[in-house]
């Protein structure tokens, strides 16, 4: 069974740069938690702090009530004693050892009898369908096989926590897809609490049970993948998640109208509820925009700037003055460049943000999903490009 990881008020500085900024997080047993963010956001620092390869400046790390790190009490348990397994970006297979010695290394360190080491290595190789590769050297294996050896080495000592640092980034695109499925199965079978670092949002969306989005050493949002997609906690997350990017439009709350509406230049979008502030940013995923080829009084007129068909779907870039909107269509449509079209927003799918601090605005009742965000997000209220 996996372990519970408690991270409390972790801070790490590199000179003047705050890699981790008073960061707290709980990972539940058996969870597949993905740390996602742009490069330099602190995700790898957090992972390395968990493993003990990096020493934070402040805070506490507790796994299953065992204090592994505490700046206040001066505790720093050595990486080897933390019962944590890790897969590195480069796999870090020892090139001078045979595959079976790579896998059995940890067991040998723990002074298991030779016969048991051999039996266990044999079993693991069999489970990962790599029988007969034990006598090879890592350089004699393909990228995918090396990846699997790294996993085999990870599970040999049965640690209750797995850490993975972008383990798929060295594989080619097709192999990466296969390995995603395999890793997911691997996690399900082992049931260990897994923390996985990536900068690839598709990887995060497809694999995680929980996603933690980080930026500048702080957590922006912790939620299940679909919640993050549907209800980004702030403008940073909204822009970071989703391909193509979410449409962000500056809007004013029209207080005079009977029912709440948001005014985007000369165009009005009806709102499902009344937000508490008037300066808004309206966010609509490309698939939540409906495209009409005929004029409609509740629709806004745009011009087709580019058509990007990809097979199952069609991405359409529209312009109106200096505004750009991207629409995703799965219907078969016959459009031409520079054609005039009209768009409508699905008001139930819209998210509203406070333009001053970039946080998401919610109706009183709240929305589904275990969603937590930072208390303040000053400084990251980026002005949407409207």
């Amino acid at each position: 069974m996996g372990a519970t990881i408690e991270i409390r008020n972790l801070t790490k500085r590199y000179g003047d740069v705050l890699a981790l900024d008073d960061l707290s997080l709980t990972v539940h047993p058996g969870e597949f938690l993905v740390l996602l963010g742009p490069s330099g956001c602190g995700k790898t620092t957090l992972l390395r702090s968990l493993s003990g390869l990096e020493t934070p400046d402040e805070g506490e790390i507790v796994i299953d009530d065992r204090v592994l790190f505490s700046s206040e009490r001066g505790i720093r348990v050595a990486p080897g004693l933390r019962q944590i397994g890790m897969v590195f970006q480069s796999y870090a297979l020892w090139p001078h050892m045979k595959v079976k010695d790579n896998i059995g290394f940890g067991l040998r360190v723990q002074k298991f009898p030779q016969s048991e080491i051999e039996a266990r290595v044999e079993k693991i190789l069999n489970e990962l369908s790599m029988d007969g590769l034990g006598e090879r050297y890592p350089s004699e294996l393909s990228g995918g096989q090396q990846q699997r050896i790294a996993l085999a080495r990870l599970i040999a000592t049965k640690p209750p926590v797995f850490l993975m640092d972008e383990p798929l980034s060295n594989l080619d695109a097709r192999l990466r897809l296969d390995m995603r499925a395999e890793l997911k199965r691997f996690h399900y079978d082992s049931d260990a609490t897994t923390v996985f670092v990536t900068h690839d949002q598709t990887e995060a969306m497809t694999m995680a049970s929980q996603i933690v989005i980080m930026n500048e050493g702080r957590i922006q949002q912790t939620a299940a993948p679909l919640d993050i997609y549907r209800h980004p906690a702030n403008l940073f997350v909204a822009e970071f998640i989703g391909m193509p990017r979410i449409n962000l439009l500056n809007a004013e709350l029209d207080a005079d109208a009977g029912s709440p509406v948001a005014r985007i230049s000369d165009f009005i979008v009806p709102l499902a509820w009344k937000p508490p502030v008037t300066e808004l940013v309206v966010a609509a995923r490309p698939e939540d925009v409906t495209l009409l080829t005929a004029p409609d009084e509740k629709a806004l007129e745009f011009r087709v700037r580019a058509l990007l068909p990809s097979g199952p779907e069609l991405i359409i870039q529209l312009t109106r003055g200096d505004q750009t909107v991207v629409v995703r269509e799965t219907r078969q449509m016959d459009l031409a460049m520079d054609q005039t079209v009209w768009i409508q927003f699905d008001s139930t799918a819209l998210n509203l943000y406070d333009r001053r601090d970039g946080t998401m605005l919610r109706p009183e009742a709240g929305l589904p999903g275990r969603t937590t965000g930072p208390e303040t997000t000053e400084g990251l209220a980026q002005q949407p490009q409207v």
Partner: protein
Amino acid sequence: MSNSAMESHRHPRVILERWFNQTKTLLMTPQIVISGILMVVLTYLIVVPLLQMTWRTLTWGEGDRRFSRQAVTGEMTGFHWEQAVSGPTSEAFLYEPLINTMITGTLAAVFALSLGAGLAWLVTRTDMPGKGWLRPTLILPYIVPSFALALAWETLFKSPQTGGQPGLFQYLFDVAPPTWLSFGAVPIVITMSIHYFPFAFLMISGALSTVDSQLEECAELMGASRWTVLRKITFPIVGPAILGAAVLTFGKTIGTFALPYLLGRPVEYQTLATMLFSSVSLGFTALGYILSLVLIVITVIVIWISARLLGGNLRRFETIGGKGFKANLTRLGVWKWPLFGMVCFIAFIAAIFPIGLLGYQTLMMVDGNYGFDNLTLHYWLGRSNPDIARGEPGVLHNTVILGDTWNTLRLAFLASILSSLVGLIIGYIVVRGRAGLVSRTLDQISFLPFLIPGIAFAAMYLGMFAVQRGPIPALYGTFALIVLICVVNRLPYSTRTGAAAVTQIGQELEEAAELQGASWVRRFWRVILPLSTGGVVAGMLVSFIGIMRELSLIILLITPSTRVLMTVGFRYAEEDQTQLTNALVMLVTVLTLLGQALVWQLGKGRLRRLKDRQID
């Protein structure tokens, strides 16, 4: 963090617990403990001797009563410096050797550099034939002891006028060579140039082979002339390497001891290094130390100036190497064969002829008679005969010499292994310490021996280990001291080799082992050491060869029980036992060549494969 948390942070019990836990963690981290130990040991072995030597020049020592009746052992005095700088003997003891050193050192460095650079260009960047065997042959003069070249010169040009038997020159032409040709500045400069040009050759051809010829071709396509290309493209790229080679060559020439000693002594031509040896041997310790300091200061100034010129740090020109590009070779055209002939001639004069002459000389029953009827194997295989060589048996029958050979091999083996191992550990701390204070300090301390000429180093250790100090016994006269000084002297090289080897090992490889619970010692043994074997073994062999022909570093510290081949040869040379001297030098040369051949073989074969396996 809330206020109450801040309060609990300062609670004495919490502070005590934190302090206790942090200390425990530190003491449980072997890297930190080892860094600490190394810091203390290296400080004691390098920094303390330097300071102590300096201190000795400022105080009265035992036995200084003979210079002045006011001498009180241990009290400070300016006497030694005053005597050295402005005393009646200062001219002979300081200024003349200083001037001689600068003249011979500078001239030899300039010649060695020009010759080395020209040959490097011809051998790496042109279509000259015969490169395969020219390259190793041209390196030969540097592989043999500098000593050997001095002996070969003597064999060629000595004459009864200046002492000893007639040399080959007189035998052939029946005219005594002029004294300036036999001994003094001219032969010193020529032989030193021959000994050190391969060094410049190696460094510069390393740099030249990294110059991508596309850079030059590009300039040529844009209409630049050959000369412009050489001046504007090639030279700026290899310039730092040439400057580096110049500095290192000069550092070596001014510190060379045996060569100027043999070729200068008969005509009282002294350099700083030979004067240093004489004064320490005669018991003028303080004067010897002052000369050491002068040598060190010259080296430091030169390195400092060149570092300023380069605008970078010292590291930049220590080793220049790396993979060569596919370089297009310059066509020599009609000059091809004349130049080839010239290079062959140089290889013959500098490498083949001196060694051949020395070998032939060892076969002469009576020195000075070069006829075939005078040939004998006595000096190699003969039994003791009171009529020949004061009854010394042939080298290969001499149990004492066989013992010395064993000593030589033992010394070279032990010192090169220890030095490589310590160098690897320091290199590890330097690389993995991420430029922390400890790792930077270790890096700099281990570089210091580089600035101290061997003979000055020995003088330092002589003072340091002559008597027992605290728990450290008087090591003078022990084999351990000889090993120790060789290890410390090689540290600047072995640390660089170690650091380069560790840099090539991905940190993740080690972290993976750490996470699997492997202790530091185990990680070092199972991951770092096996993966750095390639570079470290190569470095070790280079050290092995260097130590085997080392003389100036150990000559002051050797006692009859710790003799090695080079020092025995040196003693024979002092006694004018020319055939035996030459036989010993030949023996060392053969052993060194075997070692070098091993380096080349390893470089081509197994090590290369091992390196290939180090993917990532």
